[in-house]
């Protein structure tokens, strides 16, 4: 019992080991119990969402919570580096200003109200269906046109390839939208 207490005394450990008191001999039990923030965390391999350099990222998470995002040293393009924006991508996902609920602004209203997600989806489907039926042109001069002229789309360069595929498939291949556009040009 007494030996245990003496053994915990850093000075004793230092003298016994002949060390200078800056190594493990100086650690308290509390320090010894400290673990890195990532200890036991899972790692998802990801890609930075900002510019198109495409830096590799390691996304550390535990229990459905993000812990941190770091550069992936294995990436042959970025070799572990991230720029100020890439380094801020953890905050991009976790900052308090993120939207978590659907916001709805009624015609002529001065403010947002919250809306249930499923209700909002149903309403958007209604709007699309009504506008499409009003502005759909099946043919012109006896030739097939199959164009919905009253609904437009913008955006895609920040999205995934699979998302762009689904947007184009539904909007153009299914609904007949031609006004489909995004940031990309040349």
């Amino acid at each position, binding site marked *: 019992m007494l030996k245990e207490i003496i053994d915990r005394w850093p000075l004793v450990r230092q003298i016994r080991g002949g060390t200078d008191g800056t190594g493990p001999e100086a650690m308290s039990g509390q320090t010894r119990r400290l673990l890195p923030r990532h200890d036991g965390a*899972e790692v998802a391999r990801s890609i930075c969402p900002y510019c198109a*350099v495409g830096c590799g990222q390691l996304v550390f998470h535990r229990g459905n919570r993000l812990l941190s995002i770091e550069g992936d040293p294995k990436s042959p*393009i970025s070799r572990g580096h991230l720029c100020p924006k890439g380094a801020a991508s953890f905050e991009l996902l976790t900052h308090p200003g993120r939207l978590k609920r659907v916001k709805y602004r009624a015609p002529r209203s001065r403010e947002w109200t919250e809306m249930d997600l499923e209700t909002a989806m149903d309403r958007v489907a209604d*709007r*699309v269906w009504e506008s499409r039926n009003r502005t759909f042109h099946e043919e012109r001069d006896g030739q097939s046109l199959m*164009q919905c002229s009253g609904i*437009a789309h913008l955006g895609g360069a920040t999205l*995934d390839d699979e998302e762009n595929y689904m947007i184009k498939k539904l909007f153009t291949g299914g609904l007949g939208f031609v006004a*489909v556009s995004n940031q990309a040009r*040349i």
Partner: protein
Amino acid sequence: MPGLGTSFGRGGATTAQQDLANSDAILIMGSSMAEAHPVGFQWVVEARERGATVIHADPRFSRTSAMADLWVPLRAGSDIVFLGAMINYVLDNGREFRDYVVPYTNAATILRDDLKDTEDLDGLFSGWDPEKKAYSPETWDYRGSPSKKGKAAGHHEATGGHSKDRGGEADELSVFERDPTLEHPRCVFQVLRRHFSRYTPEMVEKLCGVPREKFLEVAEKFTAASGPEKTAAICYAVGWTQHSVGVQIIRTASILQLLLGNIGRPGGGILALRGHASIQGSTDIPTLYDILPGYLPMPTFGEDSKSLAAFVQKHRSRTGWWANFDKYLVSLLKAYYDDAATPDNEFGFSWLPRTTGDHSHLGYWLDMADGKLEGLFVFGQNPAVGAPNAGFERKAMAKLQWLVVREMVETETAAFWREIDVPPEEIDTEVFLFPAAGHAEKNGTFTNTQRLLQWREKAVDPPGDARSETWFIYHLGRRLKERAARERRPRNAGLNALWWDYRTEGRHQEPDVEQILQEINGWTVADRELVSGFADLKADGSTACGCWIYSGVFPELGNNRANGREPAGPYGHGWGFAWPADRRILYNRASARPDGKPWSERKKLVWWDAEKEEWTGHDTPDFAKKKRPDYKPKKKAEGDDALSGTDPFLMHPDGVGWIWVPSGLKDGPLPTHYEPLESPVENALYPRQQSNPAADRKERPGNAYGSAVDDGRFPHVLTTYRLTEHHTAGGMSRPLSHLAELAPELFCEISPELAREIRIRHGDWVIISTARASVEARALVTERIRPLDLAGRRVEQVALPYHFGPIGLVTGDVVNDLVAISEEPNVRIMEAKAMTCRVERSGGTARSDGGGA
């Protein structure tokens, strides 16, 4: 992406970022790479440490310039003069890499006798129709090219642009005459020489404001770093694209690189630096108005889209890779419509909508302002800040009946009804703002700037009701298909046929993203077995493929190559998947001599292994693996078989790089300098053609212009740019505390000379005005931006970052309010990088807290 697409065959960067380390010289122009693509810039730094010369030509001295050997400030909008003079320098001094140019480009091809160049017609090519303000391009064809089944070559006004109309809409470009001595007066090489003969160092001095000695130093250093033993690369970004001549600036660089033999070789190429994580991907799999996935054109209303056969006839070329056009189109229709697509109904071709005009962002936004649109979806984009004439765009949204925005934060676009000078009580627009998932909250693939598909693994669920776009589109589509099933009208035939049985998983019923990537990869219809690549695709309906150029990314179950994380070799094969077919350096057949041996030991990349009888090397050959260097096609051969063993540019019907573009561009077969739509000076090269005749000014109330030349109200040149610490329209950076603190407010870079002239000090407030709007910003008085001496006339330039808006932790005026809505003719991009403005001291001192320099 027709600048690169028409020149080389594919609308993507020809090289990889890492390959810049192999360059002997790098020209960065139209980009501040160190600031906008900082991590990619490490490869430029590495090249410089290995002895490469780095040149930065840009109006602003930035961190890119600081790391360059040479900084060349030039007037925004004078790029074609500068690059054209480089071409002229090459030709005048015999610096072309002739052993490359003769076999690998169309320099030797002879053009028609009735062709007239801009030198003959005061700045116009033959075929200009002043009524239609468009070219009829048949005189640009090769001499002897027979017409295609009686049809004259032509560009439909609504096609072209991003799509493949090279060699398709044109005549049979597979038949032509050549003069390998390059002496024939009508061969491309000689036409090119005459075309650029007046692009002299003196003209550079006069129009770019670059002293001739400085220009000659750049020309000498860049061309000296090219040849069998050396290669040079060019990097550009939206500083080139966002001009009324944007595509033609990239064309000029392409011609220069072809003449110097720098395409398809290590350390060479043109690296297009894209600005969003998947801007390349969203063009390859387009959310765009004029193309379908894989650069297949959207059908345009008219004769050519009456039947699938007529459409294929128009766009298929007999020789070169686009002979496979029908395979890719039919496979796409099978991916869309599955069993409902049959040979009897032309695989559902008639269900695709036909385009009838300008459906681009800018085109339809004007329709919106005129009340012609009812609804709008905006996904991850903030046009209320990011679009040209953003003030006009914000107001136009008030004409919508409904607006759906999907974002991670509330943006100015979603809240436009609070940000315009109309009371909300008078705005009828109904707005739905959906919370979106972030990049680590969903599986999916980005395609980066070097055509590399990289998969992201989902780490955590998105918060609250935030969902992915895939979730939104899938569940919206499900609802709409239910309605369509109840209303079996002709208009719903395509929607009813649309294959939509995606697997969903988890408590939110998220679609399985790998299944979508498998659809993009393609499968055989009979057994849903994944295809190994686009070579497996068929035109008979037996295969389905969502985007042929991505085929091979998922060649078998359990093998998602976009998720490959084991890089090997100098090009990192095994990490991600580069389209097409994991080729990292495009056109790499050109890295070997015509006989198949490397040009030099130092620059070897892909070569012919005579023992194994196949192409081999450090990259996947961008060439038929077993095609011998001495292969000569038979006369009736089609497709790739019609190209010889020395034809590296295999997308083109003639197999060579196009110095001259006979088909596919709407503003000329060669680049020509036109001034920006607003300029302080006359076009000294072509006084009768001030600006690009084919550009569309979209001039109307709310979108006004200063006079084209020297408007006394707007004496200064204005350009815009990005900061390292912010991202585009700010939605992903202004809400973040670290980034907001690093770059807290809008400023305007002004030279000390201009500051003295308008009596302001560093830190004072200034007002910057154009014919569209005025914004207020703090003056950053700095020698990083210099007044230019244009042959004795001093012109001041100013530069503004464009990230700010009224919402976020840091706010500022919307710089894009200053920019006009205009359209470059090929891709309909605005001219945001060169216009005229007035900078003056702010009258109101209320906001000014002064401060010395």
